């Protein structure tokens, strides 16, 4: 039985780490622009699909990865410059629709450029499961976890230590003030999109050996990642990771002990509960938007 529980926890952590990586992307953009980018899942897809097709074309994995991350970043920059920037002063709904339009567009392009089939990558360090407390864990999951943590550390350093990072934080808290003290807000937003797109791509590459990838893999991942980000507190890096892990563990525990059919419902109910009773999220500093 305890082995069973251990397995549920490990499975939860595996899924959770995936959600966490996607959630981080949401948080970065939200931090800088207070925009929820519904195309975040598509960055994940681009990362995975590009890597797959490039390795398929014979490129070595590392090269393919770098190219994929680069491509995603470019798409992110383009999205900000061409779609979000022009509508920055528009109401939340408009921005939501723009990013959703972008996600549909990107998905459509992916289906044209590549195909509508499922693809996968070989796990980076073999598929021999690691035995922990009578439970099996894929080495790939460790990769996902490790990289998420590394990214969180890197981000906290970036936002806490570097000038640009501080500028981005300032922009998120006090757009006007930031402008007054000479921060180039537009540039910050641009960078935030590029950054989170690249991050999404990294996620897409890392998780492909586990979840497989396809032209429309972004939909569900985007939704769950979003939920995780909200759960942990929009805009908080550690919150995103925690939110992801909580969501993942909640899912696998409810799949194990309650009902696998309703595990997603349970995940979203959890999210609603957090929204109702702690709108700022588990680790969210700022409270829900004010009057």
């Amino acid at each position, binding site marked *: 039985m305890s082995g069973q529980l251990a397995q549920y926890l490990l499975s939860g952590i595996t899924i959770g780490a995936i959600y966490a990586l996607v959630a981080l992307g949401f948080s970065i953009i939200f931090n800088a622009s207070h925009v929820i980018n519904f195309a975040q899942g598509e960055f994940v897809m681009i990362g995975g699909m590009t890597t797959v097709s490039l390795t398929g074309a014979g490129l070595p994995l590392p090269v393919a990865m770098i190219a994929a991350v680069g491509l995603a970043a470019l798409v992110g920059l383009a999205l900000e410059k061409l779609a979000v920037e022009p509508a920055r002063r528009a109401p939340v709904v408009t921005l939501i629709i723009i990013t959703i339009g972008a996600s549909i567009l990107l998905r459509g392009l992916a289906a044209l450029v590549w195909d509508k089939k499922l693809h996968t990558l070989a796990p980076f360090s073999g598929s021999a499961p690691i035995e922990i407390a009578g439970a099996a864990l894929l080495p790939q999951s460790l990769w996902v976890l490790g990289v998420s943590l590394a990214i969180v550390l890197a981000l906290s350093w970036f936002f806490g230590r570097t000038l640009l990072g501080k500028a981005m934080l300032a922009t998120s808290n006090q757009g006007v003030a930031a402008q007054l003290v000479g921060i180039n807000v537009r540039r910050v937003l641009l960078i935030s999109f590029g950054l989170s797109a690249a991050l999404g791509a990294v996620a897409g590459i890392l998780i492909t050996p586990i979840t497989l990838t396809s032209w429309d893999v972004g939909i569900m991942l985007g939704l769950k990642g979003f939920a995780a980000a909200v759960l942990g507190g929009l805009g908080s890096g550690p919150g995103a990771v925690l939110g992801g892990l909580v969501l993942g563990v909640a899912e696998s525990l409810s799949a194990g002990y309650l009902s696998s059919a309703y595990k997603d419902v349970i995940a979203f109910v959890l999210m609603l509960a957090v929204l109702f009773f702690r709108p700022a999220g588990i680790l969210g500093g700022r*409270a*829900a938007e*004010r*009057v």
Partner: protein
Amino acid sequence: MGRRVAHAEGPAVSLLRTEGLSKEFGGVCAVDSLSFAISPGRVYSIIGPNGAGKTTLLNLLTGIYAPSGGRIFLEDADLTGRAPHEFAQAGVARTFQNLQVFFNMTALENVMVGRYRRERCSLATALLRTPALARAERTCREEAAELMRFIGLAEWLDARAEAMPYGALKRLEIARALATQPRMLLLDEPAAGLNSAEMRGIGELIGLLASRGHTVVLVEHNMRLVMGVSDHVLVLDYGRKLAEGTAEEVRRDPRVIEAYLGSALASDCSVGSATTSGGSAGGTAGSVAPTLH
């Protein structure tokens, strides 16, 4: 127009009363156990250097903040901890330091919103627009228009709020507040950002309101305006009552002079800053108001 002659008489009974009213933000007391009473039909001014807690006090008196301690009474009714709309329904109306005009409506509609308290109708009535409602709406429109003329906004009757100049918007807020037929009207820096001519206009308006028996509570930086119109002045400093009395008494009070000389500059530039914030009205909603409960 609400002529409440009944309240204009018998200043013995106080209209609004607070007992040990306090509000702290993270340990800092913005308003510190404040007790005072406002008698009806007068112009009651609250002054004090910047950060003295004037706006906080106003937010307490309109239910936007829930007090951390003390009580608020409107005549005998205890309004402590009530929601802003309950204060409004009890007869407390206010304007805002940085404009809170409904920019998605015409000026007239803004004033009509003020009459919500009286015009509100059942959902069915609203959906079916019964003849009764249509009639009520017509009178509502006409009376709102009349009120606007009275406030001196005749030329803006059909204008969209977003198209109106700052000075007119300041008056529009007052009109909207009056439209609720308040028993007490709270004005938060009505002169902030106005030129001297407009300021004189506001002064005259306040005088006119008082003469019509309205109870006006005025929070204002501009001493000339305050001293000109006030029957009674309350001086705050660091959230505490520093002095209270007629304009004359207060002006002569050494503590007041001391406190003011100390921060004369502050009060000046604060008027300036109020201008800028007023200029970007609408967008600055977040800065005044905390979350409603």
